[in-house]
């Protein structure tokens, strides 16, 4: 079971596909990447796994979201055309790290980031959001119970 990741820019020439949707701290997965169109003009390709905090707050009439990338794991750096056009990577989510978290004003977001350098043209920068890195499953029930005397 795998998942096709959709970039935030839908016209992106980059496509990433995960081998599994079941991601959690400590899990491993393969990821396939490919470029459509003229990938031969990309001179440097970097793919990284990143985690960031997003905190939204209101001051007066302005609502602002601050962002802080606090984890970056390089997965690929290549200048070889054959590696840039398409390929497959394996990556692991480190154990004992923070899972995805989504609340109204505070978020922790996992992403795969593609950065391609093209001579004399703006770089390609595409972010693929990993939908959810779940907390590790434990044997005990997640259903709250209570006892009182």
């Amino acid at each position, binding site marked *: 079971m795998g998942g096709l990741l959709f970039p935030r820019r839908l016209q992106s020439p980059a496509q990433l596909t995960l081998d599994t949707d079941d991601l959690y*701290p400590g899990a491993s997965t393969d990821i396939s990447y490919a470029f459509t169109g003229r990938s031969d003009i990309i001179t440097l390709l970097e793919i990284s796994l990143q*985690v960031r*905090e*997003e*905190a*939204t*707050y*209101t001051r007066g009439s302005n609502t602002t979201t*601050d*962002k*802080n990338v*606090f*984890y*970056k*794991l390089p997965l690929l750096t290549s200048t070889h055309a054959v590696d840039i056009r398409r390929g497959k990577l394996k990556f692991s989510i*480190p*154990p*004992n*790290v*923070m*899972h995805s*978290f989504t*609340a*109204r*004003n*505070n978020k*922790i977001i996992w992403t795969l980031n593609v950065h391609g350098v093209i001579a004399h043209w703006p770089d390609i920068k595409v972010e693929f959001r990993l939908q959810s890195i*779940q*907390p*590790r*499953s*434990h*044997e*005990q*029930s*997640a*259903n*709250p*119970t*209570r*006892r*009182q*005397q």
Partner: protein
Amino acid sequence: MNNLQIQLADNNDHYAPGATLAGAVHWQLDFPQKSAELRLLWYTQGKGTQDLQVIDIANFDAPAQTGDFEFEFTLPQGPYSYSGKLISILWTLELIIQPGSLSTRTDFTMGPDRNEVVMNAMVEQAAT
């Protein structure tokens, strides 16, 4: 003098996700209480506007000025206790007595290996 207390079993304040969180509450009031409840919740601290979610509530119905009750919750899988640059996520038990909205809180940690996840530790892992 009103007195509210939350006591965690074995004075343990570090738990794994899915673990049983047990303890006892005690109150001694100068007035009759109408209700008492113990809330299991997480909340955020930091730069962003606070988020909060009550996960479970234990109600103590006996209307008495003095109360001693045991409680037990099963913790969910997440969110983990977390300390970052912009956001912290904290778990707490909150005992609330009515009327008067008297309350007391006891924080605890829930995460992998019973510890909170700290942003700096993650950066070190990424660098190795």
